[in-house]
């Protein structure tokens, strides 16, 4: 390896460390700087989106399977948490952990059925999951409260609203840290290499001896676990669940939009996308109230991203920066016989 390459690697590593520290600082400092409780609650929403998008990216980013059904997994996590508290008398955080494990267990048969379909068929199966669960949770009113909703008792009843937001802000931030760390570990592992091979060419991966179905199933269950944790934590924070919002294709689509926007091949892609889309959604809600304008805006945004930045914002911007900083080196050519001869010596 040349000296310039080594130096470039060192610079990249330092830049990454500085970036990480800056990110951690901004996240920890934000509650103190938030001008009012509304802004803080919006930040909790954004962090919730960031956890959901990063959890989705275990399946979407590694294997390339685009699931629009992750909103439903979060909804299941929320309802399971709420029901364990109200019906089974669990304490809040025991209910949260148990609910996540229950959803992960449910994800085994769900994944077993859904992951047999590929490409567009998988997308449709994942949509069907959302719609079926919506009907079940609306219809089964004696258990779930149906359309009247389910009230989830707060874990800290003595806290005032701003403090409540602040506590959950840090809880979501901690969960985000855990999910990011897990994604990073998988990315560097042999397991992650196999998952990425599935994304590139599933049949080829299988022919090289990678048990593709088992890999997909495992990563789907991991993704469901984290998604359910986010859904459960949301239930504890928000305190009220309605099937229409918990089992909506829209919430699943937002998560996909965020991940694609930020870049699914990058650890921080979904987080960046969640910040951009989450802030935009909150802004549209405040500025335009109940008009469907935020739907039009997010639709346009998705179109622009897919057309002009199919790899997401991070890779596109990084690519541009690289082109400015280091003009392209000689492109790769067909190897000549002489070069092959040379290479063999």
């Amino acid at each position, binding site marked *: 390896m040349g000296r310039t390459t080594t130096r470039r690697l060192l610079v990249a590593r330092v830049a990454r460390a500085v970036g990480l520290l800056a990110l951690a600082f901004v996240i920890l400092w934000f509650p103190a700087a938030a001008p009012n409780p509304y802004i803080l609650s919006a930040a909790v929403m954004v962090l919730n989106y960031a956890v959901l998008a990063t959890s989705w990216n275990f399946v979407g980013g590694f294997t390339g399977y685009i699931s629009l059904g992750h909103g439903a997994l979060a909804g299941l996590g929320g309802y399971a948490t709420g029901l364990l508290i109200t019906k089974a008398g669990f304490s809040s955080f025991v209910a949260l952990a148990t609910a996540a494990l229950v959803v992960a267990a449910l994800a085994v048969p769900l994944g077993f059925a859904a992951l047999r379909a590929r490409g567009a068929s998988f997308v449709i199966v994942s949509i069907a999951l959302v719609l079926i669960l919506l009907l079940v949770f609306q219809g089964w009113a004696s258990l779930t409260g149906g359309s009247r909703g389910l009230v989830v008792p707060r874990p800290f009843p003595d806290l005032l609203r701003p403090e409540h937001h602040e506590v959950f802000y840090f809880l979501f931030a901690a969960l985000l840290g855990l999910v990011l760390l897990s994604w990073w570990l998988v990315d560097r592992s042999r397991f992650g*290499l*196999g998952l990425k091979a599935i994304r590139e060419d599933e049949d080829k991966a*299988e*022919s090289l001896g990678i048990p593709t179905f088992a890999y997909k199933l495992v990563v789907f269950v991991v993704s469901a676990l984290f998604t359910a944790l986010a859904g459960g934590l949301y239930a504890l924070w928000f305190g009220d669940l309605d099937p229409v919002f918990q089992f909506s294709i829209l919430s699943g689509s937002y998560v996909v939009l965020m991940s694609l926007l930020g870049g699914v091949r990058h650890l921080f892609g979904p987080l960046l996308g969640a910040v951009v889309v989450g802030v935009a959604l909150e802004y549209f809600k405040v500025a335009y109230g109940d008009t469907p304008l935020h739907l039009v805006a997010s639709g346009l945004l998705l179109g622009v991203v897919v057309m002009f930045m199919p790899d997401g914002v991070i890779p596109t911007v990084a690519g541009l920066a690289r082109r400015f900083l280091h003009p392209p080196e000689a492109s*790769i050519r*067909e*190897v000549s016989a002489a070069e092959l001869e040379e*290479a063999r010596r």
Partner: protein
Amino acid sequence: MSHARPVRSVETVDLTKAFGGVLALDHATVSFRPGKVNALIGPNGSGKTTYLNCITGMIKPDSGRVTYRGRDITGRPPHRIARAGLGRTFQLCRVFGRMTVLDNVLAAARGRPDVERARQWLRRVGIDHVEQVEARNLSYGQQKLLELAGVLMSDPETVLLDEPAGGVNPALIERIADLVRELNAEGKTFIIVEHNMDLVMSLSDHVVVFDRGRPIAEGPPDVIRSDERVLGAYLGV
């Protein structure tokens, strides 16, 4: 990597596969020679690739049996067959386009990814200088070599090559042929589907000729060359 030379390699009995009304394989009974370079030839549409896909589990045969080293592997999932020691390449070269060359090879590793061993295979096929390049940016010839390095990384005892010389320049064909000879001398069995007759005749020890989904002749290259049934199948007589 050396293997004890097995007594038997890939064998099929009455292997049959139809696609709609087209009989792609028609009771194909074949046995390949262990430790040798076997070639599978035949006119276009004679069922060679379907046969390869049935052996490697990519397609389930309608009837018949596939055994490898005496063990029945019919209908097993492809990854199990690969792990049993049968590695393959694809007709239209397939690599993991958005992964680096090195990761392409590492993805095929058994157990812990051994970077040094991956580099050895890249060096051996002659593309170690591009290990950090994304595979989609390689030339077609380099991708063929990369595919070969990946399969070899999975340490197969038998290697199935689907048209290794297809779309590749003459110098590279020679390089691939040399590699096959070297690896065969180290104990690997080869089953090669190929249209380039010069390559088949110079490289293989044993040739099986397919026509309309079944073998019509087999034997050493010089016998096959003058077999009238083979000439008939190729010339359409």
